[in-house]
């Protein structure tokens, strides 16, 4: 899922300080699962915005709404339900959702309530960790399913750097060295020999370095 977290409240209040009618718009997709921008979090944020604006001497009407997802045109259209009830949308979706509203609602002011952080998962309640960088050229078949692009601080492709100590990353000792994990896992799988093959120079053109990426499936387009 896409993992995100709420922006500092002061930053949000500064964005909307001149707005008179604010729609705090939740997304029931990834940000609901990572407890950053679902209906529950949007309700809390709306309350905080009401309190914060009132404290700062601003008067605004703050209402709440939610969409199934904010990353699909068919759901964005549902914003019409609140037509006339807002002069700004404070989206608790990830950056994709905010972009989609901006793309598809040319006259709507939209502001991001979240900082979108990474593609990750939750192995224990309340904890999320980055697992994928969306680089567009997956090498997980070579590394036992563990990603060196996302989970190595240096995105190294041919084993650990010299700073790996006792299985921990030199950038942040609380992070496990993914190359140590790969080495150990490939040993358990009796595939360690595969790691002796040198990874070729990597083509990063799939990773967004050539600008925004787009995928078109002709069989699905109409």
């Amino acid at each position, binding site marked *: 899922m896409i993992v995100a977290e709420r922006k*500092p*409240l*002061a930053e949000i*209040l500064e964005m909307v300080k001149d707005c008179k009618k604010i729609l705090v718009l939740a997304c029931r997709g990834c940000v609901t699962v990572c407890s950053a921008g679902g209906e*529950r979090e949007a*309700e*809390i944020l709306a*309350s*905080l915005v*009401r*309190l*914060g604006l*009132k*404290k700062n001497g601003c008067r605004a009407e703050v209402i709440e709404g939610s969409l199934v997802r904010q990353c699909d045109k068919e759901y964005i259209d549902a914003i019409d339900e609140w037509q006339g009830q807002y002069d700004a949308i404070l989206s608790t979706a990830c950056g994709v959702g905010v972009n989609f509203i901006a793309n598809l609602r040319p006259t709507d002011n939209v502001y991001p309530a979240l900082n979108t952080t990474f593609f990750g998962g939750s192995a224990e309640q309340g904890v999320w960790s980055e697992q994928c960088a969306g680089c567009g050229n997956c090498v997980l078949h070579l590394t036992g399913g563990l990603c060196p692009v996302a989970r190595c601080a240096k995105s190294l492709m041919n084993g650990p750097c010299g700073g790996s100590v006792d299985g921990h990353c030199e950038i942040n000792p609380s992070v496990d060295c993914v190359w140590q994990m790969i080495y150990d896992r490939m040993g358990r799988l009796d595939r360690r020999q595969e790691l002796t093959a040198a990874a070729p120079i990597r083509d990063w053109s799939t990773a967004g370095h050539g600008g925004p990426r787009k995928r078109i499936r002709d069989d699905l387009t109409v």
Partner: protein
Amino acid sequence: MSFTPDIRLFSCHYTSQQSCVGEGRELQELGFPENVRLSRVNCTGKLEEITLLKAFEDGADGVYVVGCPTDSCHNLQGSQRAAKRVEAVRQALGEMDVEPDRIRMYHLPRGLHPEFIDAAREMNQRIQEMGPSPF
């Protein structure tokens, strides 16, 4: 300037069950501040952050939660969950440059103990010193 604060208390059913005996007369006799409004909940672990924020939106000058001791919660971890939600609101108040101590968590034993009265008096005193809510 002295004022009578509007204080909301959310208390766990077990911690406050003796408090309601005789329709709360015993509480009054023991000096429980009249300006503290008590809402009993089945378990403080069921309290949502939004409930605490709504109390401020509704005009509370201070809010506090009384739940079981952390090591003997009737529902195991309920009061620990409540403490985390109180802490989240404290942080949010801090982000708005509002005194975090306008909301507090107390862990008190079951039944009507002097500490239950003391906590109310402490909150009352604390909020009186802070003054009216800035909201």
